[in-house]
């Protein structure tokens, strides 16, 4: 599973759009818990890409429903780039 450091970075990016003030946890889901609309999700993905200096392909987005799934994907992409 993703490291605490990766998760913390992602939490920090989510916080500004966490309008429902959800307690963020690895299993928090973007659609169900945070109720983010697709435009917000798109901006968030862009922020995550910029934070980690990676590209998150559109192809894998449908599989990323929770914060930990995103964190895992991010770490995998970062590792592949090295």
């Amino acid at each position, binding site marked *: 599973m993703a490291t605490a450091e990766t998760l913390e970075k992602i939490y920090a990016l989510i916080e500004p759009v966490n309008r429902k003030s959800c307690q963020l946890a690895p299993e928090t889901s973007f659609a169900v818990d945070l109720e983010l*609309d*697709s*435009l917000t999700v*798109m*901006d968030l993905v*862009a922020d995550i*890409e*910029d934070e980690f*200096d*990676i*590209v998150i*392909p*559109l*192809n894998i987005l449908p599989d990323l429903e929770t914060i930990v799934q995103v964190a895992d994907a991010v770490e995998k992409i970062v590792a592949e780039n090295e």
Partner: protein
Amino acid sequence: MDLLDKFDSIVAQRTALPFEEADPFTVVMDKIISETEAIINGRPTILAGTNNYMGMTFNQEALEAAHKALDDFGTGTTGSRVLNGTYGSHKTLEARIAEFYGVEHCMVFSTGYQANLGMISTLAGKNDYVIIDADSHASIYDGCAMGNATIVRFKHNDVAQLERRLKRLPEDAGKLLVVEGIYSMLGDSAPLKEILELGKEYGCETLVDEAHSMGFCGEKGRGIAEDLGVEHMVDYIVGTFSKSVGTIGGFAVSNHPKFDVLRLVCRPYVFTASLPPSVVASAIASIEAISRAGNRRAHLWENAKMLHGGLKEAGFDLATEKAESPIIAVCLPDIETATHFWENLLKEGVYVNMAVPPATPVGYNLMRVSICAQHTTEQVQEIITRFINTAKKINLKLGNA
């Protein structure tokens, strides 16, 4: 489990829309009077949502050519372009379009949708990348979904975000950068020069969809790339006959020396029947007419500017600061207001497109007006007046009120 159950929420959303008689998604044109007028629900109605920008649907030469082709070659080709479906006229049409664009090669598809589907899914393979604008048309997204490439998306028209993404892609990988000239819903244009320069800097091949810019952008009417003088940076242009050309069909043009191999490997080209001869004949005549239609183009732009100016002055919230195309999109606060507005505008005798997500970028509930070169000044003024009347009728607060 019923397979259609998964769409229950969509059905519920639709049935919750507050229209009383006319449903924006099931409108029927009872009779077409001209390029700009129809009978809808028994009422004469100004058409202001047809994409018929150059008003070519009743062009005399196109009509005559179509009639003749119908008599000479029959109602359809009953076959694929690579089997029995290529007639002399298909080759002539391709030659004419190549000539119109000043390039070597052209492939005609049965729709513009299939042109994008085919070009994108075929050009970009397993280890390649396709870079697309977030507001791309469904046919571009579907082309991505059909192929095996990795898809990278950047925020609409955001050149800086595009560059950050291009920088991260492997230098030696195959890359296809796809953008539109004019975006169909908001009618806004792409900063094509900046985008294409970046694309070239980072080793991309580039594809520009000129569906909503062909006919009236650029001196010859080829589109935004011509208008901005950046055609030399475009590797593939995709277009359609279903808008300015006034019939149906799609095309791709290119100077790529290996272009013709696509005729063998592009599935949406191979595995469908070719355009009927009457459509091909009218497309040839219409493109010929478009290439000499300088006056019509000028009138279309006047119409677009007048409509934009009039609606803006009345206090409507418009998607673009000025008229960037013959598409003028009026933004409404929510889907209920949009439905209400749309229905009442129709009762006033103006048809526009109601465009809401997912067809529009999230958050946009639009009265999408598309203007035609054949609209008279009086009709444009009438459209503005009826917009204002409709706003009053449904108590829509306008910006200057």
